[in-house]
């Protein structure tokens, strides 16, 4: 999910329009996830509970992807946890920028998502960071819970989701979520390398393993980037 419209200005203040953008983004993500979950055979109530407590479309999508490919339960869970490392990294950049006070920091870092951290850390003062963080987070929560409620209902009535192209929605949503990462050179290299590793391994290794082994893409990106830096220094 892109934080672009607000991330473009130097020290953005969250307007009503930004709150709405955040809510609409998480609304569509929530609807999509519920429809896909129910289409994959999860009961409506369980799907709603899962999305309420896990609150991570990426993790849930990754889990489903492995299960769909015939992978084991733990392989799917590990894939779901690895893709959520993103949140840990976002918390790394958010936490030191917050006002002191352990409880306030714990509460905020537990809610680190891509767009709210992207906006909050652009504020100059710790108080500003915290204020903008909670405003954007509020928009996300409102959108998400309305979205998963609507999606739970829709998932029951939609019928053949393949005909509606919903199987393409699932990877498209993930692409939008990591869009900003792919704009950086190293991020792009890691992404391409991870994707290629997955394609090559997929037919030959047990389901779930290609996603875990795609971590090798990180090593490739670092090796390639070190190489280009040293050749620049040499020239």
């Amino acid at each position, binding site marked *: 999910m892109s934080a672009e419209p607000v991330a473009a200005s130097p020290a953005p203040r969250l307007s009503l329009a930004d709150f709405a953008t955040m809510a609409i983004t998480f609304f569509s993500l929530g609807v999509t996830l519920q429809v896909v979950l129910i289409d994959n055979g999860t009961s409506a109530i369980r799907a709603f509970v899962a999305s309420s407590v896990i609150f991570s479309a990426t993790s849930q999508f990754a889990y489903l992807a492995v299960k769909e490919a015939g992978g084991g339960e733990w392989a799917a869970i590990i894939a779901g946890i*690895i893709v*959520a490392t993103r949140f840990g990294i976002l918390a790394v950049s958010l936490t030191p920028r917050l006002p002191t006070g352990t409880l306030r920091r714990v509460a905020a870092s537990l809610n680190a998502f891509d767009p709210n951290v992207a906006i909050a850390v652009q504020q100059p003062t710790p108080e500003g960071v915290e204020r903008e963080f909670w405003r954007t987070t509020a928009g996300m929560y409102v959108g998400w819970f309305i979205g998963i409620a609507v999606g739970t209902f829709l998932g029951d009535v939609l019928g053949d989701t393949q005909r509606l192209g919903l199987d393409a929605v699932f990877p498209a949503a993930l*692409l939008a979520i990591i869009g900003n990462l792919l704009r950086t050179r190293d991020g792009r290299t890691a992404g391409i390398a991870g994707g290629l590793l997955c394609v090559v391994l997929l037919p030959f290794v047990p389901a779930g393993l*290609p996603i875990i082994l795609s*971590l090798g893409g990180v090593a490739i990106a670092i090796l390639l980037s070190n190489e280009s830096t040293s050749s620049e220094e040499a020239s």
Partner: protein
Amino acid sequence: MTVLAIIALTIGVWGQRLAGGFLVGPLLERRPALARAASLIPAAVVMAVIVQLTVANGKTLVLDERLAGVAVAGLLVWRRAPFIVVVLGAAATTALLRAV
């Protein structure tokens, strides 16, 4: 989703944020190379999930209408389109190609 998956993913997702903010953060501050590697993990792993969802059917590689939908999504993400536009663009492309 199984109950086990719901519990494990909930702990895994929320726990990583706490670990990031309070354990890993201070550790990474002293190791910039490790911090850089950590920041690249999502790009590689999420892309692998995308690839699997786009060109695989179980363990077989297949090229079908999904690929066209995801290609359109890629174009829209690159053009910085809003999330909802990306998602609808992918679904519409795939659905249209299947209808013809």
